[in-house]
């Protein structure tokens, strides 16, 4: 396949995973374009998080193909997928609580990723400047030396987003980035996301419809591991199938 001519950044085709016979994701296909913000919605248990797990290699697929810029992700190790340019944020904020905000960001800095690279890694000015820059973006420039454990829930979410940003991924996958945030934090996050999705592709899982409307280019509705509907927010909202299984209740 010719990379340059591919109009999609990500091609998911026939993706299936079964856990002891239960198919959490079943023959799923969808495509993501450059600079698109795709939001995946669906009721609980629809397989949303599993889809992200499959793309980033956390769960091994039973069948199907996931191509990112022409590379088959299903055959790659998690860290290789990251290096290919795919970043992933988890549902519950996962930051290193025993380390400071600075150290959290530093560990995500895309340098010194091998064992000996990590041993030889020096905290030079480029690194510091870059970390400072990201910290400003995620509203944490005042908390750089604080341990991550002492941050609020929303701040941890931002920190994790910052840890992804510093790697500058081409495809960013966010699992419920505003869950558990206050209204004010939520607003700030939406603003943040709008800024960072500008020059990359993003896949977001979200329940908050207002938030989805704010950011989505296209929406995919999952139900029982399959695509129920796909298109613009408006189209999806008016799809009777969607209304029945999801928005209806």
């Amino acid at each position, binding site marked *: 396949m010719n990379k340059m001519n591919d109009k999609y950044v990500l091609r998911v085709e026939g993706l299936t995973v079964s856990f002891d016979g239960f198919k959490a994701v079943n023959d799923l296909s969808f495509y993501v374009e450059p600079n698109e913000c795709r939001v995946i919605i669906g009721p609980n248990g629809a397989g949303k998080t599993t889809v992200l797990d499959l793309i980033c290699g956390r769960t091994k697929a039973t069948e199907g193909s996931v191509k990112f810029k022409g590379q088959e992700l299903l055959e790659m190790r998690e860290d290789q997928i*990251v290096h290919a340019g795919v970043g992933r944020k988890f549902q519950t904020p996962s930051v290193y609580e025993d380390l400071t905000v600075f150290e959290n960001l530093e560990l995500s800095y895309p340098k010194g990723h091998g064992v000996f690279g990590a041993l030889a890694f020096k905290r030079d000015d480029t690194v510091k400047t870059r970390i400072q820059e990201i910290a400003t973006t995620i509203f944490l420039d005042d908390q750089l030396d604080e341990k991550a454990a002492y941050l609020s829930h929303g701040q941890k979410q931002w920190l994790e987003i910052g840890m992804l940003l510093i790697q500058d991924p081409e495809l960013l996958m966010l699992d419920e980035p505003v869950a558990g945030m206050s209204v004010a934090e939520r607003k700030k996050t939406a603003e943040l996301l709008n800024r960072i999705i500008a020059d990359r592709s993003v896949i977001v899982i979200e329940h908050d419809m207002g938030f989805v409307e704010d950011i989505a280019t296209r929406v995919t509705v999952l139900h029982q591991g399959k695509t129920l509907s796909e298109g613009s927010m408006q189209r999806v909202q008016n799809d009777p199938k969607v209304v029945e299984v999801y928005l209806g209740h």
Partner: protein
Amino acid sequence: MKANALFTRSEMIGFAILACVIFLLLPAVLDTFRLNLFGKYLTYSFVAIGLALCWGAGGILSLGQGVFFGLGGYCMAMFLKLEASTPENTAIQSTPGIPDFMDWNQLTALPWWWEPFHSLTFALFAVVAVPVVFAFIIGVAMFRRRVGGVYFAIITQAFAAILTILIIGQQGFTGGVNGITDLRTLLGWDIRTDEAKETLYYVNGILLFAVLFAAQFVRRSKLGRLLIAMRDQEDRVRFSGYDVASFKIFIFCLGAGFAGIGGAMFTLQVGFMSPTLVGIVPSIEMVIFCAVGGRLSILGAVYGALLVNWAKTTFSESFPELWLFGLGGLFIAVVMAFPNGLAGIWVEKIEPRLLKAFKKSPAPASPAQQSTPAE
């Protein structure tokens, strides 16, 4: 923030105090016999330092460190045994020139894999390399398969059992349950004399500090922070683009290399190596040294090894029939009351008071020392 410095202020003080204890205090107050005993205890602290990195920082609990300690020790012992088994010394054997236990087991020639151990250079290399290669194989097999936690602990324990049975069963090649005994000289230098014991104690101390510096370097490097990050959020590290397994393999190999050095020094100071140091019981005891010291702290690991062994010797000399109560009680007390061990007591209780006494503002302790133990 002096991020690239090797030490924080309080760590510097800690290293200095330990150096005084090992090089000045102990030699000053102990006779040669006791000093040699402490030298033996210090060899265990090599293992405990490795465990502080693997387990405390990295969350990898190995119950098979005795394997690496033993391999290092056996490599050294093989060299020394060959040196002791000159044809003149072994003239009464049916095959002079091979180690006595081989002769007892009807071996008539030295096995090929003993041959390289005629060379000290090779033996010294093997002391580190054999445990590291062994750890590498185990590590690749286990960490690539994402075996961790309790499973890793129990599988390493099985390795300790396997190696012990193998060594005992292959006595023609290994000396069996007796081990490799009656080691005499190192390149003609008699290691059994009191002067030799003292020299070896200092060599041991210097090596210990070399290992401590290496461990400190790793801990203060980005790799050290990664280990802590991995312990707490392994997936996050993985999805930050790190190959988690290779870091675990590295730190496990490093711990194994440290243990190998400890084992070699043990052989030199005690004068023999035996399978009782390879098995499950010593492996668990080594974990306990580390736990008593405070599992995260490399200095604590040294004190832990010293304290537990000293307690063992003292209890058993004073109460030969009851000392196990004391030792068992000590382990339980440490786990229940001082989960952060000696280092925890120092950081939480003693250091703040000292600082208060000197009327200084409390300096931030190193992140590793403050963090809670791994689960």
